[in-house]
Every structure is written in structure tokens, then in C-alpha cells.
């Protein structure tokens, strides 16, 4: 049985705006297993992204605990969280967030060199990964503005996995892509997961959610549904879709 890699205990996150407190995550208890491809779904404003950022140490919870591999991270300061993230987490964003003034290769290396020493092996690995995701040599020295959305997101994925993170977090990674590009990107996620990578992904897209092995449904700051699936490709896709659709309909999606 897979071990727990990430756990929350009575996790709360609230925002204050104009003196009014808005509670986005409320007393949430959650456990994520190593090797899982966890998909977090929910309606707009349900707190999906907020939960993702709290789990990954990108943001601090208002109350409660976030335990990563047995270590509580909620009390770490910003710099300690940065050091924690660089060793444990990879991120793929909906807005991709490549560094506009850096080439494809430099974007990936910016992520890599904060953790690893520069070496020919590292450079080769970056290039291999880029090639693997369909970005050939011609693209390596391009700037983000010269890439299509799909190409850019693939760079984002390579940058996220280059340090072999314990968990890969993804926030609507196909949200800004057309369907073909989105499918390519999801295929990459599937492949990465099948190679043993733990993934936590936020989405509101059914096709994206189908790639996961576990779907959590969030409403009013709490998990109201937890749906398990086999690895993508190991079962019948139609059945998988029906089962997930049914779960989501039950959740009021």
C-alpha cells in the first residue's frame, strides 16, 4: 500500500477584504498517497486553487496543519518554504508563467540550477526532456512569445519535473490551450504519472480529470466527494468517463 506523502489536519484558509473575512477552506482533513494522480474539482470559487497553493507551500494556511512526508510546513517562513518547494515540489500553471525574457532552455535551467549544479549531464537531461515533450532543438533558443500555448506549457512541464519533485502540482494546466494541445499536454502528465510521479492537479475539465486516479470534489471549502479510478489506460475509457460523470453529477457539478 502506498505511503502518505501529503496530509492536512483541520486546514483553514480565509481572506480578509475590506474587513470582511471570507473563509475559503474550512477544517479540511486530507491525505494524498505517494504515486497518486489526485485531481481536485469543484465549482468556481470552491477553493480548488487556494487548496493547491496551501498544500504546496506556495501560500500559508490561516489555521491547521499541512504535513509533507511527516514534516509540518505551515509554520515555515517564506524563505524556508522556498527551500522546501525547490526540493519537493514542481508546478505547472494555467497561465504557464514562463519567464518572458528567457529562452526555453534558460526557463528550464532557471528551475534546475537553483537545486542542481550545472553539468553536461543536467543540460543533456533538459534537452532530452524537451525533445521527449516534442520540443526539438529549434525551439530551445526561442523566447516564450515565439511559442504556441501548447509548446509553452510543455516547457512549463519540463521545468516542473526537471528536479524530480516528490509531488507535481498543476493548476488547470490545459485551461488556456486548444483541445489538441491540451490532449498532448495531458498525455505527458499521464506518462509522467505512469513513471511513478505523484501529481495533484486542479481542473474543472472532465477530460483532464479522467487522467487522474483519484478525484476530490470541493464545495464550500471542504471535500464533499472522493472518487477512485484505475490508472489511465488500464480500464475502459467509456466506463471510466461514465463513472466519473456520475460521480460529478452526484456532486452537483
Amino acid at each position, binding site marked *: 500500500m502506498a505511503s502518505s506523502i501529503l496530509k492536512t489536519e483541520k486546514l483553514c484558509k480565509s481572506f480578509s477584504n475590506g474587513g470582511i473575512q471570507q473563509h475559503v477552506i474550512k477544517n479540511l482533513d486530507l491525505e494524498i498517497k505517494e504515486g497518486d494522480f489526485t485531481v481536485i474539482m469543484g465549482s468556481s470559487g470552491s477553493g480548488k486553487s487556494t487548496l493547491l*497553493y496551501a498544500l504546496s507551500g*506556495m*501560500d*500559508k494556511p490561516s489555521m491547521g496543519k499541512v504535513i509533507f512526508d511527516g514534516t509540518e510546513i505551515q509554520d515555515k517562513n*517564506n*524563505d524556508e518554504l*522556498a*527551500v522546501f*518547494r*525547490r*526540493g519537493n*515540489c514542481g*508546478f505547472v*500553471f494555467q*497561465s504557464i*508563467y*514562463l*519567464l*518572458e*525574457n*528567457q*529562452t526555453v*532552455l*534558460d526557463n528550464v*535551467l*532557471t*528551475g534546475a*540550477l*537553483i*537545486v542542481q*549544479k*550545472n553539468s553536461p549531464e543536467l*543540460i543533456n537531461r533538459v534537452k532530452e526532456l524537451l525533445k521527449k515533450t516534442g520540443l526539438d532543438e529549434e525551439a530551445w*533558443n526561442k*523566447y516564450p*512569445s*515565439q511559442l504556441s500555448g501548447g509548446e509553452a506549457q510543455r516547457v512549463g512541464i519540463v*521545468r516542473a519535473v526537471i*528536479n524530480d519533485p516528490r509531488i507535481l502540482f498543476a493548476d488547470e494546466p490545459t485551461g488556456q490551450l486548444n483541445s489538441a494541445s491540451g490532449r498532448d499536454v495531458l498525455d505527458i502528465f499521464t506518462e509522467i504519472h505512469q513513471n511513478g510521479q505523484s501529481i495533484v492537479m486542479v481542473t474543472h475539465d472532465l477530460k483532464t480529470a479522467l487522467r487522474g486516479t483519484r478525484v476530490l470534489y470541493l464545495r464550500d471549502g471542504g471535500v464533499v466527494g472522493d472518487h477512485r479510478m484505475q490508472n489511465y489506460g488500464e480500464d475502459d475509457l467509456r466506463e471510466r468517463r461514465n463513472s466519473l460523470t456520475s460521480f460529478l453529477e452526484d456532486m452537483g457539478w
Partner: protein
Amino acid sequence: MGKIFRLSLFNLRKNRKEAVAIAFLTLVSTVMLGIFAINVSKVSNAFDESFEQSGSVDTMIMIPESDYRGVYQDILEKEYGFEDIRRGNMLYGMASGVLRDGEKIAYNLVFIAKEENQKIDDGKIIEALTEEQLGTLEHWVLLPSYFRYNLGYEAGEDFTLVVGGKQYPFTVAGFYNTGFSNDSGMLFKILVSAEDYRLLTPSYTASVFLAYNADDGFDYREYFKKCMDESGDSFEGFGFLREDEKLNETRFLNMFLYLSIALSLITFVASIFMVRNKIRSDIEDQMEKIGVLEALGYKGKEISLSYVFEYVISSGIGGVAGGILAIMTTPFMNNGISVMLGREVLSSAKLYMAVPVVAGVIGLILLFALAKAAMVKRFPPVVAFRKGIRTHSFKRNILPLEKAGKSINRRLGIKDSIRNIRTGAGVGLCIFLAGTALLFCMFTFVMFFHGSDGLVRLMGLEISDDIITVNDGVDAYALSEELRSFPEVSMTRVTYAYTIFRIDGQKEGTAFAYDSFSDMEYIIPMEGRYPEHDNELMITLRRSRDYGLDISDTIALDHKGVKVNYIITGIVGSMSNNQMNLYMTSDGFRRANGGAAASMVEIYLEDGVDREQFEQKLSSVYGRSMDAAMDGDPAGGTPEERIQAVAAEKIAVLMSTYGVSGIDYAVRVGDRLITGNSRQFVMKDLQSYQDLIKSQLDPISDITRFFTGIGVAAIGIVVAVILGIIASSNVKKRRKELGIMKSLGYSSKDLMTQIAISIMPVTVISVILASVAAILFNKVFWFQLFGADIRTSIPVLILTDIALIAFTFIMTYIGAGRIRKISVNELMTE
């Protein structure tokens, strides 16, 4: 217009810190420029008004009484046509000792009887003891106003003169306003009673003065030449012109005012750069908002104006506050001018001059802001929505990370600096200007750190502990030899009375002659070598530049009509004697001045020797006054003492009248032998230039140290504010990018380090350029003002450069500290 104004206020509230910083920089610029504008004319007016009020003539010449001829006055009357020439007598004492609080200080003094002074000025009393108090005083002096305003003397204070081993205790009766002789660098004119004038006469050089009002352009050097040609005699006289006095008295004040304007211009340039930089980065940062406003129907011009208003409001607040502060400093400036000038400041300040300064500062900022804000017009809504084309990078990838070394932060920082080369150029300009000013202030501050020592090195004079001037006929070499056997003495050097030589077409020069220049400490040729033969001399840097003279050129010195040629072997930087000294060997000196005999012995004491005690010893052994002996010193009552008094009288007469150089006597009275010699009359005068230098240079040193210290601090604050704003706006501009970096695991410290490193290339280049500029400026400044050759202290330069670079790094690092307060989430979703 209202909505634009509201938009500006909204932006101001949002950018509070930057607005405060720009207001601060504008305030500093306006205060300094305002102070300059209000006071620059006051310095000149304060002198003129004080001079006018003194009722002084505008010209005076002073000639030693022994050299004066009646024909000299005739020349003024007949050749120059001057009327109402008043002739009178005064006493002159170079480096005259004065005791103050037990400490001996030396001034160049002239003494004049109070009634006699009416021939020169009104002697208007500024402050004095009451008639009742005055009645109780046996010996009083009236001091020129400089003593009250600058040196802090008070009426009723002791003023004890020390001359030739004797002390003359006086009391300060008060202070008066003099036209001439109110400058520590020249002379002080002291008023005494007619009785005390007679009392002091044997101890000082009796001189004749001619006071009159001359036409503009009167040249006393030319007049002296005419006098010497007419009489066939040579003399060394002093000329006093109102314009020269003004120049001497106001030189340092003006220097500080002009330095303050230089500092304020640096701050001003920095303010303008900051405003331009901020407007550009704000527009780039708020491109989407601009697009929205344009889409809503706001015109490009209106949006531009909202940015301009924002900075005009903040710089306007700073400018107006600066103008008010400049006006408020008037009483302090009056006091400062009064102290530095040594005169009462009567003129009212031109406070209205603050208005054009404030208007000019705000106007210029408005102009630059308008020019920069006009860039909004280049972005129609669609382009603005896309955040302009600048966010898209197509440049060649310089310093690819593939080839990064050990430090990714260093690599990314340097990459960033190359990327932002335009901002870097502006920052570089600020650092260059500030660095130049800072280095100049540091050089000067360090030079004056130990008081006047730094200036002493620029005088072009050898500064011994004591100088004995021997009586006529005394063998200075023999005395020098004798003094060397004293345990207190480490070295002696024989030299000649300072003699002025005329040179056709040039300013006259004071000659310094030594047997050898091998042990010189301060007279060091900056080019060439010391003179070795009797046809060689060294000139000053000022003479070299002013008259285009160089090594191996020949100049002819004229003394009493005898012209002798000399070859220039070296050039010496010198601040003293109008920067026109001449340096030659003793043989060379005698070539042009055949009758001269060595008459001075410079004495250097061993470390730890009490100079006061040593001087007392010299006075008791060598310092008996010949005049007093000839008048019959009050002798004791014993036969032996009476015999010694008579013998002394005879020796004094023989030495002073017949030029006898050494006398021994022996008188047998019964079985007792009474002996003696002329040794007791060897010393004519005992001076210490160290005391004179202390009185002349210490006030300059103190004020310069204070001013440059303030300058270093002010520049430091300005640089810190500029860098703080740059770093802070850098963070703001790069919020998203920095957020992405944080998400990748870069800590706030990493990112702050990168931002600080990004400013380093431009800092290092600017600091190197500033070093070159500061060295050149320092050289030009000291040469133009004082004819001095300044050698830049390389350790000070290197340490200041390192400190400036480190300061820049630290300030930028701290300025980027707002990164800490922003979470990754906030940064990216802003």
C-alpha cells in the same frame, strides 16, 4: 481635469513610498539650490556693506619705516594724482605669538594707535566694555571683528602678546569694524593706546602706511617698482586693496556655496532620473490599465497627464517644502556667513530668490515628466491590452544559463543588468555623479581629518618647530651648530630672511634658500629635481601654469636692480605666498642678493620635547633685547649686576651700530673675575610657524571637515534613497517574474541578491569612472583655488570605492526587501 486629478491621487496613494522618496530628493535639491540662490549675493554684499560701514579707505600700502622714503608719497600724488593721502605709523609682527587659555597661537599682526587708525577707518566699535570697566584697564586692545565672530574672543578676555621671550599682557576692551586686515590668512589690525604703541615699538617692525582712495585698477606692485626705480632703494612692502581683501575673505565661503550647488545639482539630476524612470516603469507596469482607460474613452493625453500630475504633486510638495526650509535657514546662514567672514552681517537676505528656484525645479521636473509620459500615446488600447511589444523578448540570449557557473543568482543578476541596460545607464549616471562628489568629499575629509596637517603639506614650506631670526652680524651657522648640541634638538637648518624678487611680466616671488634640499619634508618637486647649482631654481605649479614656464626654461630674478638668470629644475605645488614661491640654493640666493647673509635658523625638536619650555630656554639664553639693553635694563643692586648691565649695554651698541658679531669680556674686580659675552643678544626674534599655521589653517580645516562630512552623509542618504526606489520599483515591475521564481524555489534572499547583483556591473563601471573624475576634479579644484598639487591617496580611493560599491549593494538589497512581504501567490496573481 477633475477625474485626471483623482486618478493621480489614486496612483499617489498606491505609490506612497516612491512619492515620499521623490518629494525628499526634490526637497534636498530645492533646499540646497535655494540656500545658494538666497545667499550667494549676500556673501558679497555682507563684505561690501561691512567695508562701507567701517569708513575705510579702499587702498593702503605698508613699507618698513627703515625703507620708507618721502618720495613714495609724492609719486602717489604726482604720478597717480591721488588726493588726501594719509601717512601714519604702525607696527608689524609676522607670526606674533598670543597666549590664549595658556596656549600659544600666532597671528600676523599690525598694531596701530587708536587715534592713528582714524587715518585708515572710523574704528567703529561693535562691542566693548563699559567706560567704567575700561577705566580700570592698564593695557587694552581693540580687536577686529574677526576675533569676535570667528575666533570667539570676548570683551574682558586676556590677550597676552609673546615676543622675543617677553610677555605683554593686554585685555580685550572690545571689537571694532575694520575695512582691511580682518582675515586670518593675511593680517589682523589691532588698536592700542598711544602709550602701549610706544611700549610695543621695540618688539615689532616699525612701518609706515599710506592710506588713500585709489582708482580702480591701481596696481601696487607697479607702484612699488616705480618707488624703487625713483629712490634706487629696494624694499618689501605690503599692498592692501579692497578687492583683494574681499577675495581673500570670501574665498572659502564662496567655495562652500559652489560646492553645495554641485551637490544639489547631483540630487536634482537624480530626482529627474527617478521621475523619468518611475513614469516609464509605471506606464509599462500599468499597460493593461491604460488599455482599459483608453477603451473607456480616456484620451492618451489625459492618461499621460495623470502620471505627470502624480509626480508634479510629489515633487511640488518637496519643492515647496524645500523652498520654505531654505528660507528658514536664513538666520543660520547669516550666522554661518558672519562666522566665516568674521564680520557682522547687515544685509537682508533675498528671500524672494527661493521662488524662482522652486518654480524652476518643479518646472523642470514637469517638463521631463511630460516628455516621458507622452509615451502613453504610443499605445492604442489593443496594444496596451497586450502590454505593449516590450514584454515580448526577441533579443539574442546573452549569458545563457547553459554556461552558468556555480552561482545561479549571480548569473541571473548579471543577465538582468544586461537586459535593463537603459535603466542601468540612468542609475549609472546617478552613481557616477554621486560617486564623484562622494570621493571628492572623502579626499578632502581625510586630508583634514587630523586638523590642518593636510593643508600644511600643500603649503610648499618646510615647517620647523621654531625659527630663530638672528641679530645683524650674528653668525647663523655658528648658532645652528651650537643648537644642534642641545639634547632637545633633532635637526637645524640655516636659511635666509624671506626675500621677494621681482620678475618682469610676472608676479613677484618669495624666495626660500637652503644649503641643501636633501632633507626636505614638505618642499617636494612634483616634476624635475631640486636645484643643485647657483644658477638653478624651482618654481611653483601656479607660476608654471600661469606663465607657461617649464623645466629647463630660464627666468630672470630682479633684486635691487640686479638681474640674474636661473634655469628652472623643478616644479613644486604650493599654497603659500600667492602660490608664487621660488626655491634655490644658498649660493643661488646670494647670486641675486649679494649682500645677504644667512639670518634664520630653523629648529626641529626631538619627539616629546615641550616646545613652550624649549622656547623659554632659548629666550633666556639668546633672547635679550638689544634695544632694552641700550636703553639701560634695570639692573640689580649688586656691583656685579651693575657691571654686567653696563657690559651688556656696550655689547648691544657694538653689535647693532658697528656690526660686531661676537664679543667676550672679562672684568677683574679685586680678586673676582666677572665674565660675559654677546651670546645673550643672538636672537632677534623667535617664531613658530606651527602656531601661525594653527591660527590660519585650523578654522579652515574645521569648517572643511564639517562641510565634507555633511556632504558624505548627504550623498549617502541620497544614494540610499535612489537605490531604494530603484530596487523597490524593480520588484514592483517584476512582480510576476519574481513570483514565478519564488514558485520555482528561489527564496526572497536569492531574489534580493539577484536584484542587488543586477546593479553591480553598472555600479562598478560608474565607480571607476567616478574615481577618475574625482581625481581630476580634486586636482583641478585644489590647483585653481590654491595652486596646490594634490596627490590622491590610493588607499582612500580604493577603500571609498569598495565602501561605495558595498553600500550600493546593501542599499539595493534592502530596497528589494519588499519581496519578503509578498507571497508567491500574491506575486503571481497580482
